[in-house]
Each structure stands twice: as C-alpha cells, then as structure tokens.
C-alpha cells in the first residue's frame, strides 16, 4: 500500500461510495414524487425545486428551522463561555479532585441520551421549561460543556506556560492577561470548539424531540412528523434532509485542518 496509484484509487473509490447516499438524497429532493415512483434513475428526469419552495413557504418548517438554529447557537455560546476558564484551570494547575472532575466530565460526554430522556422530561416539566428552547439548550449542555472543556484543554496546552508568566512579569492582572493576551492566542481553538458544539447539538435528535411538543418543535421533530403524517412524501422529506446538511457543509471548510484535533478531544 505504498503511496503509489493503488491506494489513491481505493481512496477515491471510498469517497465516491461515501457520497453516494447523500447524492441520492439530493437527487430525490429535486424530483417530484411521481418521478421517483416511476422507477430508478441516476439523474432526475425533470429537475424541480418545488419541494424547497414548499418548505420555505411553509411557516411550520421555517419556524422549526429557526428554533433549531437558535437553541444550537445559544447552547454553543454557553458551552464555550463556561468551558474556557475550566479548560485553563485543568491545563495550568493541579487542584484537589481535578482528575475525578475531569473523569466525571468524560462520563457525562459519553452518557447515553436515552438514559436522560425520561428524567429530563420530568425535570423540565416540573421546572416549567418544557416545550421551550431553554429545555433543549440546558439538556445539550450535558454533553456539550464536557466536550468544550476537553477540546479547549488541548488547545490551552498549545500555549507555552512561559507566556502566562511573561504577562504576569509585565504587570498584567489575570483578567487583563486572559482577555488581551490569552484569548487571541487560542482563537482558532475557540473557533474549532464552537464548531464541534454546534455540530453535536445540531445532530442530536432524541432529547430535542422529547423535550419539545409544539411551540419549540425543532426541525428534526417536524421531519419525523412529516414522515409519518403526509404518507411517504419522499421528495419533501429529501429536501428537508438536504437543508439540514447546509450548516455543517458551510462551516466545515473554515476548520478543516483542525477537524481531527477536535474529534480526538484535543488529544492529538
């Protein structure tokens, strides 16, 4: 498997196979249902954007898209903001119980959503947050805050400790140093962490649908409903699916060379 031609062919073949299902969805979103039902084709016979137009004109879809984007954005901001000081503390100091706390965060990051679905339902119902964006925002903090801490801790480690000391010697107070010197140094780390929090919150479906019913129904929930109610409107479903891919595809280009560091919890 020297880096000759054979590995290249294998790799390109894999990329094609990987993109095939996505292409299939895009193709179907540009076909009418009758066109789909009338048999298998590699290319849509007559291209139509009617389903996209339908979605954009339908207030429930647009509202759902807005709801999804808003709770994901708010969750990302909270996660990163809360995780920054913690990541600095974990990387720069030993303190009592730091190991156990870090482990506890890992367990929350890995906690099965199903285990928390029912308790969250009860909790937010009791607290009166049920069917509001805040329920999903706080629920997603369960795994997004630990994720943010893990990734940021890796990036904080990239800044040499001597820079903190030089700033102290120069006379910076800690807040002054943190904001004016330190944050700019891990700016791309913050960017990557925000991207991952956005993604992990955007892709999650179980908690988002469990904790909402009507007012704060996210895009995913509207999709599952569309799937069962409108009886196999495949192209509408495909169009909705394609729309959910746009945020990811748009942002990823900016963080492409840090993707691996993010997925490896900052440990690469």
């Amino acid at each position, binding site marked *: 498997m020297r880096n000759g031609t054979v590995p290249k062919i294998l790799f390109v073949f894999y990329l094609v196979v990987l993109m095939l299902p996505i292409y299939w969805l895009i193709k179907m979103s540009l076909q009418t249902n009758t066109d789909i039902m009338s048999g298998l084709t590699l290319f849509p016979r007559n291209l139509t954007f009617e389903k996209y137009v339908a979605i954009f004109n339908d207030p429930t879809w647009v509202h759902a898209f807005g709801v999804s984007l808003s709770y994901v954005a708010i969750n990302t901001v909270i996660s990163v903001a809360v995780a920054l000081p913690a990541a600095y503390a974990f990387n720069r100091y030993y303190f009592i119980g730091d190991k156990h706390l870090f482990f506890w965060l890992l367990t929350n990051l890995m906690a*099965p959503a199903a285990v928390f679905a029912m308790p969250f339902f009860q909790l937010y119902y009791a607290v009166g947050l049920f069917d509001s964006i805040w329920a999903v925002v706080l629920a997603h903090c369960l795994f997004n805050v630990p994720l943010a801490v893990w990734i940021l801790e890796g990036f904080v480690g990239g800044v040499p400790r001597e820079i903190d000391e030089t700033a102290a010697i120069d006379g910076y107070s800690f807040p002054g140093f943190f904001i004016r010197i330190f944050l700019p140094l891990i700016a791309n780390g913050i960017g990557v962490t925000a991207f991952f929090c956005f993604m992990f919150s955007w892709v999650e479906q179980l908690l988002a649908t469990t904790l909402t019913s009507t007012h704060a129904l996210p895009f995913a929930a509207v999709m599952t409903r569309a799937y069962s109610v409108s009886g196999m409107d495949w192209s509408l479903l495909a169009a909705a699916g394609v729309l*959910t891919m746009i945020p990811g595809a748009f942002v990823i280009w900016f963080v492409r060379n840090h993707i691996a560091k993010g997925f490896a919890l900052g440990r690469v």
Partner: protein
Amino acid sequence: MIDKPVNNRAWFFVLPVLGVVLFSSIIPVMTVVNYSVQDTMGANSFFWNGDQWFRDLLNPTTTIGARFNDALFRTLAFSLACLLIEVPLGIALALCAPRKGWAVGISLVVIALPMLIPWNVVGTIWQIFTREDIGLFGAALVGLGLHYNVTQEPISAWMTIVVIDVWHWTPLVILLSYAGLRAIPDAYYQAARIDGASRWAVFFNIELPKLQKVLVIAVLLRFMQTFMIYTEPFVVTGGGPGSATTFLSIDLDKIALGQVDLGNAAAMSLVYYLITLTVCWIFFTIMTQLERRGDV
C-alpha cells in the same frame, strides 16, 4: 518544562462548568435512582420496591431480565461488529489518504460530511436508500439475487444498521488515524527508508506504535456511540422486525415513554449508565497512563 503548580483557587474557574453540568446531570440521575427503587400501581401512587427491579433485570429467567439481557447482547454484538469493521478500515484508508497538496483539504471535508448530518436525516437517507423500489442500495442487492428486505428480514435489518454505522462513523477513525500519522516526524520515515524497511515493517514499527494514543480515543468514542445508538435504528427499522434491531436505548425508550413503566425503565437506565461508566473508567486510566509515559 516547568511542572504544573498546585493551586486550589483554580476551583473558582471550574465552578461555572460544575454548576451547568450538575444541573443537567445530577438531578436527572437522582430522579432515576428515585424511581428505580419504587413501583407503581398507576394513578401516581408509588410504593417501596427495594432492589427488586435490579434483581429481576439481572436475572435472565424473569421476563424483564430476559428482555434486558437480549437487548444488552444485541447491542454489544452490534458495537463489536462496528468496531471490528471501522477501526481497521479507518486506519487503512488513513494510510491511503493524500498527504500533501490541495487534495488533502478537500478529502478531509468530504470525509467529515457524513458526521455533520443530523442523525435522523442519516436514518431518512438510508431508509430511502435501502428500499428496492426507490433506493440504489436495495435495488442493487435485490438485483444480485439476495433476498434483502429491511422491514421483514431480521438479518437484513441488523446488517443494514451495521452498514449505516460504518458509513456514518468510519470517517471518524480515518480522521483520527490521519492526524496521528501526520504527527510522525518525517525523520522516522527517512530512517526507515535508509534501513531498507518494507512498507509493513514501517507500519508495525513506526506508524502503529505512534497511533496508539489516537486509536485508544477512536475505540472509546466508537464503542460509546454504538453502545448508545438510538436514532438510526429508530428511523430505519423502528427496532424491528420483531426485536432484531431493538438496541438498549430503543428498548429503554419503549419502556420509559412507551409503556411509562417508570420503575423498570429507571432500573434499566441505571444499569445501562453504570456499564458506560465502567467502560469510561477503563479508557480514562489507559489514556492518562499513555500521557504520563509521554508520547510513545
């Protein structure tokens, strides 16, 4: 390098994280524990049930025990299958990936795309893709004469979920291995060339040892995600046919929100959670040990 100082005032930095995660973690766990030791006769009246739920769950002869046992082994088999395919495939593809030039950026983005799609949309894609009337995958398999039907055939359903997971998450292993390989200084490859090492010798003696740290993380992430999979099987097969793809989280969801049998669901949740905790603990110790021994 100066070692980290001990500074317990650092707790002030950590309090915000503690507050937020505690709220969304401890309170729910407390409710689960609370229900797991009670039973109900309906109409919101609960009575003490001690550890009865747990004894039933862990005793395969009882109905709920058998059900839990089946779901657990079904999920473990699924996790194992996914790991055995995804990890070697991921490493192999990382070795084939382009190392320099414009192709690197594009291939990284394309590889990462599947992981950015909401899990229910992944389910929808494959739900369509596996139908033999309108899906390429379904049509191809049926065309090959295989009796493939996701909704009726347990084997087809179970295999399909594995294929979906391999399609969805192998990119993660590729990216991690690729990053691990890129961290190897070029001098190692040059030394190996000078020593006349074969491609396999280079892989076993340089690349694999250096990938150790990254692979531990890849296996941890992959095991945990497969062990708690819910959305894809829920969308594509709804846990069916029968209970062929009713993994732990689907089963739990059915009991908790479907039958609203809180006691059983709570006990099951706790056992499920404890398993993930132990696995996390094992990996956490391995990772800290690797870190303390310095970069292998």
